């Protein structure tokens, strides 16, 4: 099946146009009537596949404001479900604030650590450099759960268990393999002449980093920050294990707990509203920074 559909676009064009600019130059553009007729099934099929991916999101957004029995929005359209969400336990504003704090702290820490670390790995030779880099990448190899159990004990010992700062520290650590790797290759892509010249002109190494290299690695930083935000905003397991105070829950945890709070009956409307609030910043960021998002995935692929 799959292979069959694969071949369809190739009927009008060159079979696969790879390379950096995968456009097919000798293309008829499908402007002729025959071309359009040939490609209509392809458009219908691919459009349908695209809709399958979008439909659950659209449906949830619509259902969250639609009338529904057993929710706070029984008659007519409105924001009743969002009211339920707003009044749940400590209130959605509290959980939004918690999630925002964890996310921003994780983004800031990840950017700072990986910027300095990437600079060190790309531009300096120091004893233990390769070991440290390998150890950082090794974080990827170790299951989340394997680390969260001892981290629960360790953070308890230093008073950071049940703390949003503790969650942010843990999430930063989990971001480091990707972030450090990406910043290292970002720095390595910048010609050495650039910072050598700055050093010759009397810049300190930090001055060279701050004034000369920072603008050059900005795309890398945006990608790292984007992924750190998405990971922290959406993380479920770290707060689930490390937070036990309902005042300090993050949004995903709160929305998950919201199901089945009232006498075991699930408020589906409020859950839909919660999903919308959770998904909205992610989708907006995705649409704004799509190029950086895809680039992040691709750098993961090139590593292999």
């Amino acid at each position, binding site marked *: 099946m799959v292979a069959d559909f694969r071949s369809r676009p190739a009927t009008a064009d060159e079979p696969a146009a790879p390379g950096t600019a995968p456009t097919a130059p000798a293309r008829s553009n499908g402007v002729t009537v025959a071309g359009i007729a040939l490609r209509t099934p392809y458009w219908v099929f691919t459009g349908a596949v695209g809709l399958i991916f979008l439909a659950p999101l659209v449906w949830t957004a619509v259902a969250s404001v639609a009338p529904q029995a057993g929710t706070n929005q029984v008659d007519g359209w409105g924001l009743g479900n969002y009211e339920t969400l707003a009044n749940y336990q400590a209130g959605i504003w509290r959980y939004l604030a918690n999630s925002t704090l964890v996310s921003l702290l994780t983004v800031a820490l990840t950017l700072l650590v990986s910027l300095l670390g990437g600079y060190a790995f790309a531009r300096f*030779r120091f004893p233990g450099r390769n070991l440290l880099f390998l150890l950082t990448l090794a974080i990827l190899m170790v299951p989340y759960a394997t*680390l969260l159990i001892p981290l629960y004990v360790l953070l308890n010992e230093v008073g950071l268990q049940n703390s949003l700062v503790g969650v942010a520290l843990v999430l930063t650590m989990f971001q480091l393999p990707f972030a450090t790797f990406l910043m290292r290759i970002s720095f390595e892509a910048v010609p050495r002449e650039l910072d050598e010249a700055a050093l010759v002109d009397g810049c300190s190494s930090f001055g060279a980093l701050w004034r000369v290299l920072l603008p050059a690695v900005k795309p890398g930083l945006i990608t790292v920050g984007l992924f750190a935000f998405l990971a922290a905003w959406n993380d479920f397991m770290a707060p689930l294990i490390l937070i036990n105070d309902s005042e300090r829950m993050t949004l995903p945890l709160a929305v998950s707990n919201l199901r089945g709070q009232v006498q075991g009956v699930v408020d589906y409307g409020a859950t839909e509203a919660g*999903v919308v609030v959770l998904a909205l910043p992610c989708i907006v960021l995705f649409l704004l920074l799509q190029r950086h998002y895809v680039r992040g995935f691709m750098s993961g692929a090139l590593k292999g």
Partner: protein
Amino acid sequence: MPPRKPSLDRSPAPEKRKVLMTVTAPSRPPSAAMRGHARRRGRRGLLGWLYATPTAVFVGALFVVPLLLVVKMSLSRWPLLTGDQGINVPDNFTKAVDHRFFTDSVVFTVKYTVLATVLLLALGLGLALLVQESSRWNSLLRASFLIPSALGLASASLLFYVLYSPYASPLAPVMESLGFTFLGSPTAALLSTTFLIVWRYAGFYMVLMLVGLQGIPADVYEAARSDGASRWQTFTKVTLPLLRPTLALTTVLCVTGSLLAFEQFYILTKGGPDNSTITVVQLIYMVAFQGQNDLGVAAALSVIVLLALIVMNALQLRAFRTEER
């Protein structure tokens, strides 16, 4: 020059450095330059460590220490509330293996991993082939395939929790007339959860496959076409073999991710129905924090998972490498 470019690209760094040295060195007297160079190298090593210190602190305190601690915990009696009660080797491991859900959860996790990996790789490749040419329509398609991956796994699971419910789902009438629910039976629960995962991750694997496809040179396809290869032959004899590194990477990623599945089952099925969908990580969570409250046994399970994962990844990489020869 242009046709030789790829081979030149492979070793740019050392050559550039050599050029730089020959340019800068003669500007100073040789002996002073060499002494200065050595001193500068020492200082730069120190500076390097300075910049790497935050990374070292995070990796040391939040990765290496916990990793050592989990091994120690697995060898000790360690209840959730009272903490370390001394060495008890190998009680935790025998208790872990004898846990009434151990075998079931391992079997279920492997079953789920095989299903998710096969579906995700096939679909990821299929979608990539569908949209690999660049056109406005295709970039629209790519974006719509990718949007779900921006959602968190927990959010996506909550979304499908509603979508699968017999009460709030738009598919409720269908479920009613056919007399089944999406999460009602063990098989339905497994398939429904796998669908959620495929929806959430297909776009991600599509991007990885696209990168792999772009790495296949166009002239290979030219050659296949001029040899009169059919499209199917081109796909099986050219595309798939040349895609092997990408397939290896995606398999390792997908197997690792699926073996560690937690959120989707924790939120969607809570391990049910009849404890049929408990994954290994869920078992770890249950043993540690839900009822049994035994961190020692949970740590032992974690160590077993870690070792299994290392062995499996090594085997997969070796399998892909030997096939290549």
